[in-house]
């Protein structure tokens, strides 16, 4: 009830976050990584005992436009255009044959394909989710029709994705984070997870509507009750999932750090939206269509 009554406050919090995310996206944008643009990443380290890190620049290596970043106490991460195996070997020789930890090279065509497939999978997941919700809530029509449940769920999803993407635009600006296919995967998992959260709340609304078939309770009261009944569950489920993800971020391998960060942000936003945004929106939708009962 508290949540439904004070919905204006919660809408504004979401609104501010979304606007901030949009500003970040427009101002800085997301930096696509080599998964999408094509190019190479070489990560090397020098043995402390025998060799030390030389001073190199993109020019001295003959790699125009390459970015060279020092990592740890004794290593480099070099980002450059796509390198052929020969160019790669030349580069290693010029660096003094350090230990190569990682070498990724993606051709521009594969990059373009990855981008296309990413958009397609985002589109398909969204479509599947709309159809799914419409199907699940097909019998619910009183007093808010089923397609509105779907629409509200999508608003929630857009909210979560926007916040996660906005955060990465900010990180890209501050720390040079790049987005890769794993980031897109994280977005899709956020979609799946947060709809899962919203469905549980809506499910309860549906059940309470069925139990209250004579329509004795006011709709906003009923939604408020449903939110309260599922509140602990929503928070706890998100908590256990967040626990696992935070551990993954802190302890897990370097390769999945950005991935787990994106997931953590998205899932936190998702929990917020299903409790504080989607359910109150149901009440608002009911009021907008002129219902007062």
């Amino acid at each position, binding site marked *: 009830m508290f949540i439904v009554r004070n919905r204006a406050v919660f809408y504004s919090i979401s609104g501010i976050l979304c606007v901030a995310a949009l500003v970040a996206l427009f101002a800085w944008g997301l930096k696509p990584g080599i*998964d999408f643009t094509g190019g190479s990443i070489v*990560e090397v380290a020098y043995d402390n005992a025998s060799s030390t890190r030389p001073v190199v620049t993109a020019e001295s290596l003959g790699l125009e436009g390459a970015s060279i970043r020092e990592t740890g106490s004794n290593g480099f991460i070099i980002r450059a255009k796509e390198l052929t*195996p*020969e160019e*790669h*070997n030349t580069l290693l020789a010029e660096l003094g044959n350090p*230990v*190569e*930890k*990682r*070498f*990724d*090279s*993606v*051709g521009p*065509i594969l990059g373009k*394909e*990855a981008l296309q*497939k*990413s958009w*397609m999978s985002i589109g398909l*997941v969204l479509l*599947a*989710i709309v159809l*799914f919700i419409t199907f699940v809530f097909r019998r619910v029509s009183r007093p808010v029709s089923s397609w509105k449940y779907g629409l509200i769920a999508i608003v929630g999803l857009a909210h979560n994705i926007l916040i996660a993407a906005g955060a990465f635009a900010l990180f890209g600006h501050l720390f040079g984070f790049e987005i890769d*296919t*794993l980031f*897109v*995967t994280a977005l*899709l*998992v956020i*979609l*799946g997870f947060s*709809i*899962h959260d919203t*469905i*549980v709340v809506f*499910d*309860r609304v549906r059940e309470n509507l069925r139990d209250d078939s004579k329509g004795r309770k006011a709709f906003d009261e009923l939604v408020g009750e449903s939110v309260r*009944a599922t509140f*602990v*569950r929503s928070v*706890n*489920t998100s908590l*256990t*999932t967040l*626990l*696992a993800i935070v*551990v*993954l971020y*802190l*302890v*897990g*391998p*370097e*390769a*999945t750090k950005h*991935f*787990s960060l994106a*997931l953590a942000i998205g899932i936190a936003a998702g929990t917020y939206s299903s409790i504080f945004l989607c359910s109150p929106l149901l009440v608002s939708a009911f009021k907008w269509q002129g219902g007062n009962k």
Partner: protein
Amino acid sequence: MWKQRISALLLLVIAFGIGYFAYDKAGTNASDSVTPSRFPYRLGLDLSGGTHLVFRADTASLPESEVSEAMQSLAQAVERRVNVLGVSEPLVQVEEGGTVGTTEHRLIVELPGITDVKQAVDAIGKTPTLDFRLMKPGSENLTPEEQEKATFDDVFVTTGLTGRYLKRATLQFNPTTYAPEVGLQWNDEGAKLFAQITRDNVGKPLAIFLDGAPISIPRIQTEITSGEAVINGTFKVEEAKALVRDLNYGALPVPVSLASTQTVGATLGQGALNASVHAGLIAFIAVAIFLIIWYRVPGLVATIALAIYVALNLALFKLVPVTLTAAGIAGFVLTLGMAVDANILIFERMKEEIARGKKLPEAIKEGFHRAWLSIRDSNLSSIITAIILYYFASTPIVKGFALVFGLGVVVSMFTAITASRTLLIAVAPRGERALSRFLFGSGFIPKKSSR
């Protein structure tokens, strides 16, 4: 009551067995000296170290109907060359890809343990090497066991006669058996060398090596001065044709170009594997602590159900088998947090039923029953996501994640419902004492027994 307790016990015993099967790590690392397990975990290249190559095949000059056959023979040729590198378990597979409206044929080559990309690419793209070798003196009398152990270098010595001296290779048929053969014509220098070798070694076997492996070991009957030789292995016509073409033109059956490379050093891979395993362990413990503190006895039951979930999943990773990558294990850790969702839904429902004045056993049944719809609906959305991710995966990383994630969601639905219910009913007390109310309650503030 006893029936339920026995089935719960049985469940635990089975789970323990599965857990033991999953725990057996033998054979996961190639370097392990222990006897290899029949079902090892399969580690992706990002965890074991190695090189993943994607080649684009140029099939433009081929008619559509012949493309798939050409790709198969390309894969075979590449596989033969990769084997020479001494890779333990190389993977060569044909894949179709491309942006919308175009189809591109690709060859995926995975080389565990190889980090020298140039060496690998050169080995794959090179001309087949043909050379003739003689047996070392005495090696003809090896016992079968000794032959088994001996490498080619132990048994054969090179003669210096190689494909370099080849003038031309032709496809011909044996006049008596009609079997396809490959005829070799040496140039002047090669003819001289060949004559000398055959003169000095009459009666001895002369092995013909292709890409470092013997394809036929004929015995020298007499000195050959004509500058011609014949390879009559057990060729099929197609194979002989392909070999002739390879020898003459030195090219792969379909021209290829390198489209992407991923190399992970063994140290980084090992570090990533350790980090992934640690993350999984700690995440499990963190979730378990949370569950037990908040939900007490049901929380303990959920933790056991989660342990069963882990055992079942790990066993499936071995049996399917699933190639585990860093992203895949991340997916698994993620499902650890999500898998308890069904339990939480059920427990919250139970609590409500108790609040409505139902007795414990009844509340448990009702809780499971009422929560099922929500569990089904909410997990379906994750399954849909996993399926779409799997089919539209643009990188093996994403595919690996999608498989583990999807598998995890399905298994978690099973364990949360079956395992938790069996266990919870088995431990549920019948009385209504305050202690059992507390133990089966939840949260930090004790709930009033009625409202």
